Protein backbone atom coordinates (compact mmCIF):
# COMPACT_ATOMS: atom_id res chain seq x y z
CA UNK A 1 0.00 0.00 0.00
CA UNK A 2 1.35 3.41 -0.94
CA UNK A 3 1.41 6.30 1.45
CA UNK A 4 -0.66 9.24 0.26
CA UNK A 5 0.66 12.70 0.94
CA UNK A 6 -2.60 14.59 1.13
CA UNK A 7 -0.87 17.91 1.76
CA UNK A 8 1.08 17.56 -1.49
CA UNK A 9 -2.08 16.53 -3.35
CA UNK A 10 -3.80 19.73 -2.25
CA UNK A 11 -0.63 21.81 -2.72
CA UNK A 12 -0.70 23.17 0.83
CA UNK A 13 1.80 23.11 3.70
CA UNK A 14 1.41 20.99 6.80
CA UNK A 15 0.53 24.08 8.77
CA UNK A 16 -2.17 25.26 6.36
CA UNK A 17 -5.31 26.65 7.95
CA UNK A 18 -8.70 25.04 7.25
CA UNK A 19 -9.51 28.06 5.07
CA UNK A 20 -6.38 27.57 2.99
CA UNK A 21 -7.17 23.90 2.57
CA UNK A 22 -10.73 24.65 1.49
CA UNK A 23 -9.59 27.34 -0.91
CA UNK A 24 -6.95 25.15 -2.51
CA UNK A 25 -9.36 22.22 -2.79
CA UNK A 26 -12.01 24.35 -4.48
CA UNK A 27 -9.55 25.77 -6.94
CA UNK A 28 -8.04 22.42 -7.86
CA UNK A 29 -11.45 20.72 -7.99
CA UNK A 30 -12.56 23.22 -10.63
CA UNK A 31 -9.35 22.69 -12.54
CA UNK A 32 -9.34 18.89 -12.51
CA UNK A 33 -13.03 18.13 -12.65
CA UNK A 34 -13.29 15.44 -15.33
CA UNK A 35 -16.13 17.31 -17.02
CA UNK A 36 -14.00 20.44 -17.25
CA UNK A 37 -10.40 19.37 -17.75
CA UNK A 38 -9.04 17.97 -20.98
CA UNK A 39 -6.16 16.21 -19.25
CA UNK A 40 -6.32 12.46 -19.64
CA UNK A 41 -5.66 11.80 -15.96
CA UNK A 42 -8.10 14.42 -14.69
CA UNK A 43 -10.42 11.75 -13.31
CA UNK A 44 -7.62 10.23 -11.24
CA UNK A 45 -6.46 13.61 -10.00
CA UNK A 46 -9.97 14.65 -9.07
CA UNK A 47 -10.45 11.47 -7.07
CA UNK A 48 -7.19 12.06 -5.21
CA UNK A 49 -8.26 15.62 -4.44
CA UNK A 50 -11.60 14.48 -3.03
CA UNK A 51 -9.86 11.91 -0.87
CA UNK A 52 -7.26 14.37 0.41
CA UNK A 53 -9.91 16.96 1.21
CA UNK A 54 -12.12 14.39 2.90
CA UNK A 55 -9.31 13.81 5.41
CA UNK A 56 -7.79 17.26 5.81
CA UNK A 57 -11.03 19.20 6.19
CA UNK A 58 -12.05 17.09 9.17
CA UNK A 59 -10.03 18.14 12.26
CA UNK A 60 -10.17 14.64 13.80
CA UNK A 61 -9.15 12.84 10.63
CA UNK A 62 -6.48 15.43 10.01
CA UNK A 63 -4.96 14.93 13.47
CA UNK A 64 -4.94 11.19 12.93
CA UNK A 65 -3.46 11.58 9.50
CA UNK A 66 -0.72 13.86 10.87
CA UNK A 67 0.23 11.14 13.35
CA UNK A 68 0.37 8.56 10.59
CA UNK A 69 2.37 10.92 8.46
CA UNK A 70 5.00 11.26 11.20
CA UNK A 71 5.15 7.51 11.37
CA UNK A 72 5.86 7.81 7.69
CA UNK A 73 6.32 5.63 4.64
CA UNK A 74 9.05 3.02 4.43
CA UNK A 75 12.16 3.51 2.30
CA UNK A 76 10.49 1.96 -0.75
CA UNK A 77 7.51 4.31 -0.47
CA UNK A 78 5.16 1.62 0.80
CA UNK A 79 3.25 2.09 3.99
CA UNK A 80 2.05 -0.01 6.88
CA UNK A 81 -0.04 1.50 9.63
CA UNK A 82 1.34 1.25 13.16
CA UNK A 83 0.33 -1.95 14.95
CA UNK A 84 -3.11 -1.72 16.48
CA UNK A 85 -4.03 1.35 14.44
CA UNK A 86 -7.71 2.12 14.47
CA UNK A 87 -9.31 5.31 13.31
CA UNK A 88 -11.58 7.02 15.80
CA UNK A 89 -12.97 9.51 13.38
CA UNK A 90 -14.18 6.98 10.88
CA UNK A 91 -16.96 5.87 13.24
CA UNK A 92 -19.97 8.00 13.82
CA UNK A 93 -18.48 11.44 13.34
CA UNK A 94 -20.47 12.63 10.39
CA UNK A 95 -19.35 9.85 8.08
CA UNK A 96 -18.58 10.75 4.54
CA UNK A 97 -19.63 13.84 2.77
CA UNK A 98 -21.32 13.63 -0.56
CA UNK A 99 -17.99 13.28 -2.30
CA UNK A 100 -17.80 10.11 -4.32
CA UNK A 101 -16.05 8.12 -1.61
CA UNK A 102 -16.50 4.78 -3.31
CA UNK A 103 -13.36 5.17 -5.32
CA UNK A 104 -11.00 6.31 -2.60
CA UNK A 105 -7.64 4.57 -2.37
CA UNK A 106 -6.70 1.49 -0.39
CA UNK A 107 -4.69 3.80 1.84
CA UNK A 108 -7.79 5.78 2.73
CA UNK A 109 -9.83 2.64 3.16
CA UNK A 110 -7.26 1.14 5.52
CA UNK A 111 -6.82 4.29 7.60
CA UNK A 112 -10.31 5.69 7.81
CA UNK A 113 -12.52 3.04 6.33
CA UNK A 114 -13.77 1.68 9.67
CA UNK A 115 -16.99 3.58 9.90
CA UNK A 116 -18.46 3.12 6.54
CA UNK A 117 -21.97 2.51 7.78
CA UNK A 118 -23.24 5.40 5.73
CA UNK A 119 -21.25 6.02 2.62
CA UNK A 120 -19.96 2.75 1.35
CA UNK A 121 -22.63 0.32 2.44
CA UNK A 122 -25.46 -0.67 0.23
CA UNK A 123 -27.03 -3.22 2.55
CA UNK A 124 -27.27 -2.88 6.32
CA UNK A 125 -30.08 -1.32 8.32
CA UNK A 126 -32.98 0.29 6.62
CA UNK A 127 -31.31 0.20 3.26
CA UNK A 128 -31.64 -3.54 3.04
CA UNK A 129 -35.06 -3.42 1.48
CA UNK A 130 -34.30 -0.56 -0.80
CA UNK A 131 -34.67 -1.24 -4.47
CA UNK A 132 -32.49 1.00 -6.54
CA UNK A 133 -31.71 1.27 -10.18
CA UNK A 134 -27.98 0.91 -10.92
CA UNK A 135 -26.22 4.05 -12.07
CA UNK A 136 -25.57 4.90 -15.68
CA UNK A 137 -21.88 4.94 -16.46
CA UNK A 138 -20.28 7.29 -18.94
CA UNK A 139 -17.23 6.15 -20.91
CA UNK A 140 -15.30 8.10 -23.52
CA UNK A 141 -14.17 6.19 -26.57
CA UNK A 142 -11.54 7.64 -28.91
CA UNK A 143 -11.87 6.33 -32.47
CA UNK A 144 -9.83 6.72 -35.62
CA UNK A 145 -11.52 8.28 -38.61
CA UNK A 146 -11.40 4.98 -40.50
CA UNK A 147 -13.19 3.29 -37.59
CA UNK A 148 -15.88 5.94 -37.51
CA UNK A 149 -16.18 5.69 -41.27
CA UNK A 150 -16.51 1.94 -41.57
CA UNK A 151 -17.90 1.05 -38.17
CA UNK A 152 -15.80 -1.21 -35.95
CA UNK A 153 -15.64 -3.45 -32.94
CA UNK A 154 -13.90 -1.94 -29.92
CA UNK A 155 -13.08 -2.93 -26.39
CA UNK A 156 -14.39 -0.49 -23.85
CA UNK A 157 -13.19 -0.57 -20.22
CA UNK A 158 -14.99 1.24 -17.45
CA UNK A 159 -15.68 0.99 -13.73
CA UNK A 160 -19.06 0.03 -12.33
CA UNK A 161 -20.13 0.15 -8.70
CA UNK A 162 -21.68 -2.89 -7.13
CA UNK A 163 -22.31 -4.41 -3.72
CA UNK A 164 -19.92 -7.14 -2.55
CA UNK A 165 -20.85 -10.05 -0.24
CA UNK A 166 -20.85 -7.81 2.81
CA UNK A 167 -23.00 -5.24 1.11
CA UNK A 168 -20.15 -2.80 0.63
CA UNK A 169 -20.14 -0.78 -2.55
CA UNK A 170 -16.98 -1.53 -4.50
CA UNK A 171 -15.72 -0.47 -7.89
CA UNK A 172 -15.27 -3.21 -10.45
CA UNK A 173 -13.51 -2.87 -13.78
CA UNK A 174 -15.59 -4.11 -16.66
CA UNK A 175 -14.59 -4.65 -20.27
CA UNK A 176 -16.97 -5.03 -23.15
CA UNK A 177 -16.57 -5.53 -26.85
CA UNK A 178 -18.84 -3.08 -28.54
CA UNK A 179 -19.90 -2.88 -32.16
CA UNK A 180 -19.72 0.74 -33.21
CA UNK A 181 -21.99 1.54 -36.15
CA UNK A 182 -20.54 3.43 -39.12
CA UNK A 183 -20.99 7.19 -39.30
CA UNK A 184 -20.78 8.18 -35.61
CA UNK A 185 -19.81 11.80 -35.09
CA UNK A 186 -17.61 13.33 -32.44
CA UNK A 187 -19.58 13.99 -29.26
CA UNK A 188 -22.37 11.59 -30.14
CA UNK A 189 -23.51 9.06 -27.57
CA UNK A 190 -24.21 5.38 -27.79
CA UNK A 191 -26.28 3.64 -25.18
CA UNK A 192 -25.70 0.06 -24.11
CA UNK A 193 -28.75 -1.00 -22.19
CA UNK A 194 -28.14 -2.67 -18.84
CA UNK A 195 -24.33 -2.51 -19.05
CA UNK A 196 -23.86 0.13 -16.33
CA UNK A 197 -23.75 -0.53 -12.59
CA UNK A 198 -25.97 -3.35 -11.32
CA UNK A 199 -29.11 -2.41 -9.44
CA UNK A 200 -29.50 -2.85 -5.69
CA UNK A 201 -32.19 -5.05 -4.17
CA UNK A 202 -33.29 -6.38 -7.55
CA UNK A 203 -33.35 -2.95 -9.18
CA UNK A 204 -32.71 -2.66 -12.88
CA UNK A 205 -29.07 -2.20 -13.95
CA UNK A 206 -27.95 1.18 -15.29
CA UNK A 207 -26.83 1.75 -18.87
CA UNK A 208 -23.43 2.41 -20.33
CA UNK A 209 -23.31 5.69 -22.22
CA UNK A 210 -20.39 5.91 -24.61
CA UNK A 211 -19.29 9.31 -25.87
CA UNK A 212 -17.43 9.14 -29.15
CA UNK A 213 -14.20 11.08 -29.54
CA UNK A 214 -12.29 11.40 -32.77
CA UNK A 215 -8.52 10.97 -32.82
CA UNK A 216 -6.75 13.41 -35.18
CA UNK A 217 -6.00 12.03 -38.64
CA UNK A 218 -2.73 12.86 -40.41
CA UNK A 219 -4.50 13.86 -43.64
CA UNK A 220 -8.20 14.40 -43.13
CA UNK A 221 -9.98 16.65 -40.70
CA UNK A 222 -13.66 16.34 -39.86
CA UNK A 223 -16.26 19.09 -39.61
CA UNK A 224 -19.62 17.70 -38.57
CA UNK A 225 -20.37 15.08 -41.22
CA UNK A 226 -17.92 16.51 -43.75
CA UNK A 227 -14.35 15.33 -44.25
CA UNK A 228 -11.87 18.03 -45.26
CA UNK A 229 -8.66 17.44 -47.18
CA UNK A 230 -6.09 19.90 -48.47
CA UNK A 231 -4.82 18.86 -51.91
CA UNK A 232 -1.75 20.43 -53.53
CA UNK A 233 -1.87 21.28 -57.25
CA UNK A 234 0.73 22.73 -59.61
CA UNK A 235 0.32 26.27 -60.97
CA UNK A 236 -0.25 24.89 -64.48
CA UNK A 237 -2.93 22.44 -63.23
CA UNK A 238 -4.61 25.37 -61.52
CA UNK A 239 -4.29 27.62 -64.56
CA UNK A 240 -5.22 25.16 -67.29
CA UNK A 241 -7.54 22.83 -65.40
CA UNK A 242 -6.74 19.15 -64.88
CA UNK A 243 -8.08 15.83 -63.70
CA UNK A 244 -6.26 14.72 -60.56
CA UNK A 245 -6.45 11.70 -58.25
CA UNK A 246 -7.62 12.56 -54.73
CA UNK A 247 -7.74 10.22 -51.72
CA UNK A 248 -11.02 9.75 -49.87
CA UNK A 249 -11.35 7.85 -46.60
CA UNK A 250 -10.52 4.28 -47.61
CA UNK A 251 -10.53 4.92 -51.37
CA UNK A 252 -9.65 7.43 -54.09
CA UNK A 253 -11.45 9.31 -56.82
CA UNK A 254 -10.66 11.39 -59.88
CA UNK A 255 -11.49 15.04 -59.48
CA UNK A 256 -11.67 17.73 -62.11
CA UNK A 257 -9.82 20.90 -61.15
CA UNK A 258 -11.54 23.75 -62.97
CA UNK A 259 -9.55 26.01 -65.24
CA UNK A 260 -8.33 29.19 -63.52
CA UNK A 261 -8.38 27.89 -59.94
CA UNK A 262 -6.86 29.97 -57.15
CA UNK A 263 -5.32 28.56 -53.98
CA UNK A 264 -7.91 27.94 -51.27
CA UNK A 265 -10.70 27.08 -53.69
CA UNK A 266 -12.97 24.38 -52.32
CA UNK A 267 -14.45 21.49 -54.25
CA UNK A 268 -17.27 19.44 -52.78
CA UNK A 269 -17.35 15.70 -53.37
CA UNK A 270 -20.97 14.78 -52.70
CA UNK A 271 -21.56 11.88 -50.35
CA UNK A 272 -17.88 11.16 -49.71
CA UNK A 273 -18.02 12.34 -46.07
CA UNK A 274 -19.17 10.35 -43.05
CA UNK A 275 -21.76 7.74 -43.99
CA UNK A 276 -25.27 7.75 -42.53
CA UNK A 277 -28.85 8.54 -43.37
CA UNK A 278 -27.65 11.95 -44.51
CA UNK A 279 -24.06 11.24 -45.56
CA UNK A 280 -21.56 14.10 -45.43
CA UNK A 281 -19.35 15.38 -48.23
CA UNK A 282 -15.64 15.50 -48.73
CA UNK A 283 -14.38 19.04 -49.08
CA UNK A 284 -11.20 19.34 -51.12
CA UNK A 285 -9.23 22.53 -50.48
CA UNK A 286 -6.87 23.21 -53.37
CA UNK A 287 -3.48 24.61 -52.59
CA UNK A 288 -1.11 25.75 -55.32
CA UNK A 289 2.49 24.69 -54.76
CA UNK A 290 5.57 25.29 -56.84
CA UNK A 291 8.74 23.21 -57.00
CA UNK A 292 11.52 24.32 -54.67
CA UNK A 293 13.77 24.76 -57.68
CA UNK A 294 12.81 25.51 -61.25
CA UNK A 295 14.86 24.53 -64.27
CA UNK A 296 16.42 27.35 -66.28
CA UNK A 297 13.91 26.56 -69.00
CA UNK A 298 10.97 26.90 -66.66
CA UNK A 299 12.29 30.18 -65.33
CA UNK A 300 12.48 31.48 -68.86
CA UNK A 301 8.87 30.42 -69.43
CA UNK A 302 7.83 32.19 -66.23
CA UNK A 303 9.54 35.33 -67.47
CA UNK A 304 7.54 35.10 -70.65
CA UNK A 305 4.42 34.54 -68.58
CA UNK A 306 5.15 37.57 -66.44
CA UNK A 307 5.48 39.66 -69.57
CA UNK A 308 2.26 38.32 -71.08
CA UNK A 309 0.23 38.82 -67.87
CA UNK A 310 1.68 42.19 -66.95
CA UNK A 311 -1.75 43.70 -66.36
CA UNK A 312 -2.75 41.22 -63.67
CA UNK A 313 -2.42 42.77 -60.20
CA UNK A 314 -3.17 40.22 -57.44
CA UNK A 315 -2.66 42.97 -54.81
CA UNK A 316 -5.14 45.45 -56.24
CA UNK A 317 -7.30 45.25 -53.12
CA UNK A 318 -4.46 46.08 -50.75
CA UNK A 319 -4.53 49.82 -51.56
CA UNK A 320 -0.83 50.01 -52.29
Amino acid at each position, binding site marked *: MDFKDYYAVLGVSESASPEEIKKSYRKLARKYHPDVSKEDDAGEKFKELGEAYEVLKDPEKRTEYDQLRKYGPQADGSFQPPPGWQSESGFGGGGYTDADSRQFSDFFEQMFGGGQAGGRHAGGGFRQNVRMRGEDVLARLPLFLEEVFNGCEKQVSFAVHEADDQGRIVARQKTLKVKIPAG*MREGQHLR*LKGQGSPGIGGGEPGDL*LIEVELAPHPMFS*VEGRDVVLTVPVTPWEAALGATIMVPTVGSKVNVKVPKGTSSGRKLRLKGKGLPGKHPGDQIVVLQIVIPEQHSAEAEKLYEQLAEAEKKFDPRSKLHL
Partner: protein
Amino acid sequence: MSEKDSILTVEVMDSDGSTFTLHEVCERGECHAEFVIKLVNYGIISPVEPSAEARQWLFDVAALARLHKARRLQRDLKMNLPGLAMSLELLDEVQEMRREVARLNHRLQQLLD
Protein backbone atom coordinates in the same frame (compact mmCIF):
# COMPACT_ATOMS: atom_id res chain seq x y z
CA MET B 1 -10.59 -3.79 -6.42
CA SER B 2 -11.05 -5.26 -9.86
CA GLU B 3 -12.12 -8.77 -10.56
CA LYS B 4 -11.09 -10.46 -13.71
CA ASP B 5 -12.36 -8.47 -16.65
CA SER B 6 -15.35 -9.94 -18.31
CA ILE B 7 -15.31 -9.66 -22.06
CA LEU B 8 -18.61 -9.76 -23.76
CA THR B 9 -19.65 -8.81 -27.23
CA VAL B 10 -22.68 -6.61 -27.19
CA GLU B 11 -24.58 -4.88 -29.90
CA VAL B 12 -25.36 -1.23 -29.54
CA MET B 13 -29.04 -0.93 -28.77
CA ASP B 14 -29.56 2.50 -30.18
CA SER B 15 -27.53 5.46 -31.22
CA ASP B 16 -29.92 8.30 -31.77
CA GLY B 17 -33.31 6.75 -31.51
CA SER B 18 -34.22 6.08 -27.90
CA THR B 19 -35.94 8.56 -25.61
CA PHE B 20 -36.70 8.75 -21.90
CA THR B 21 -39.66 10.18 -20.01
CA LEU B 22 -39.29 12.78 -17.27
CA HIS B 23 -39.77 10.01 -14.71
CA GLU B 24 -37.03 7.91 -16.30
CA VAL B 25 -34.45 10.70 -16.45
CA CYS B 26 -35.20 11.56 -12.80
CA GLU B 27 -34.58 7.99 -11.76
CA ARG B 28 -31.38 7.80 -13.78
CA GLY B 29 -30.14 11.19 -12.63
CA GLU B 30 -31.20 10.49 -9.04
CA CYS B 31 -32.95 13.82 -8.87
CA HIS B 32 -36.40 15.32 -8.50
CA ALA B 33 -38.58 16.26 -11.45
CA GLU B 34 -38.38 19.82 -10.18
CA PHE B 35 -34.64 19.86 -10.84
CA VAL B 36 -35.07 18.57 -14.41
CA ILE B 37 -37.83 21.11 -15.04
CA LYS B 38 -35.50 23.85 -13.84
CA LEU B 39 -32.73 22.58 -16.13
CA VAL B 40 -35.18 22.79 -19.01
CA ASN B 41 -36.29 26.28 -17.98
CA TYR B 42 -32.69 27.42 -17.82
CA GLY B 43 -32.10 25.95 -21.26
CA ILE B 44 -29.50 23.51 -19.96
CA ILE B 45 -31.24 20.52 -21.48
CA SER B 46 -34.26 20.35 -23.72
CA PRO B 47 -36.84 17.71 -24.47
CA VAL B 48 -37.27 16.47 -28.03
CA GLU B 49 -40.58 18.38 -28.25
CA PRO B 50 -40.03 21.46 -26.09
CA SER B 51 -43.59 22.69 -26.57
CA ALA B 52 -45.18 19.68 -24.87
CA GLU B 53 -46.28 19.61 -21.22
CA ALA B 54 -43.68 18.39 -18.73
CA ARG B 55 -45.55 15.11 -18.26
CA GLN B 56 -45.21 14.40 -21.96
CA TRP B 57 -41.56 15.39 -22.29
CA LEU B 58 -39.18 12.95 -23.90
CA PHE B 59 -35.40 13.30 -23.64
CA ASP B 60 -32.81 11.81 -25.98
CA VAL B 61 -29.54 10.15 -24.96
CA ALA B 62 -27.58 13.40 -25.39
CA ALA B 63 -29.93 15.18 -22.96
CA LEU B 64 -29.56 12.32 -20.50
CA ALA B 65 -25.76 12.51 -20.71
CA ARG B 66 -25.99 16.26 -20.13
CA LEU B 67 -28.23 15.77 -17.11
CA HIS B 68 -25.62 13.40 -15.64
CA LYS B 69 -22.95 16.00 -16.32
CA ALA B 70 -25.02 18.73 -14.67
CA ARG B 71 -25.56 16.50 -11.62
CA ARG B 72 -21.83 15.79 -11.32
CA LEU B 73 -20.91 19.46 -11.57
CA GLN B 74 -23.59 20.40 -9.07
CA ARG B 75 -22.47 17.72 -6.62
CA ASP B 76 -18.71 18.13 -7.00
CA LEU B 77 -18.41 21.88 -7.38
CA LYS B 78 -21.49 22.94 -5.42
CA MET B 79 -22.91 24.97 -8.27
CA ASN B 80 -26.29 26.65 -8.36
CA LEU B 81 -28.50 26.62 -11.44
CA PRO B 82 -27.43 29.88 -13.09
CA GLY B 83 -23.82 28.84 -12.50
CA LEU B 84 -24.49 25.41 -13.98
CA ALA B 85 -26.19 26.88 -17.02
CA MET B 86 -23.35 29.26 -17.68
CA SER B 87 -20.61 26.66 -17.05
CA LEU B 88 -22.19 24.10 -19.35
CA GLU B 89 -22.56 26.68 -22.10
CA LEU B 90 -18.99 27.83 -21.67
CA LEU B 91 -17.75 24.23 -21.56
CA ASP B 92 -19.56 23.54 -24.83
CA GLU B 93 -17.99 26.61 -26.32
CA VAL B 94 -14.53 25.66 -25.05
CA GLN B 95 -14.89 22.18 -26.47
CA GLU B 96 -16.03 23.50 -29.84
CA MET B 97 -13.11 25.94 -29.85
CA ARG B 98 -10.62 23.21 -28.95
CA ARG B 99 -11.89 21.20 -31.89
CA GLU B 100 -11.74 24.23 -34.15
CA VAL B 101 -8.19 25.02 -33.03
CA ALA B 102 -7.19 21.40 -33.65
CA ARG B 103 -8.75 21.54 -37.13
CA LEU B 104 -7.08 24.85 -37.99
CA ASN B 105 -3.72 23.73 -36.65
CA HIS B 106 -4.02 20.64 -38.72
CA ARG B 107 -4.77 22.62 -41.85
CA LEU B 108 -2.01 25.10 -41.12
CA GLN B 109 0.42 22.23 -40.72
CA GLN B 110 -0.60 20.92 -44.13
CA LEU B 111 -0.08 24.33 -45.69
CA LEU B 112 3.37 24.64 -44.16
CA ASP B 113 4.54 21.17 -45.13
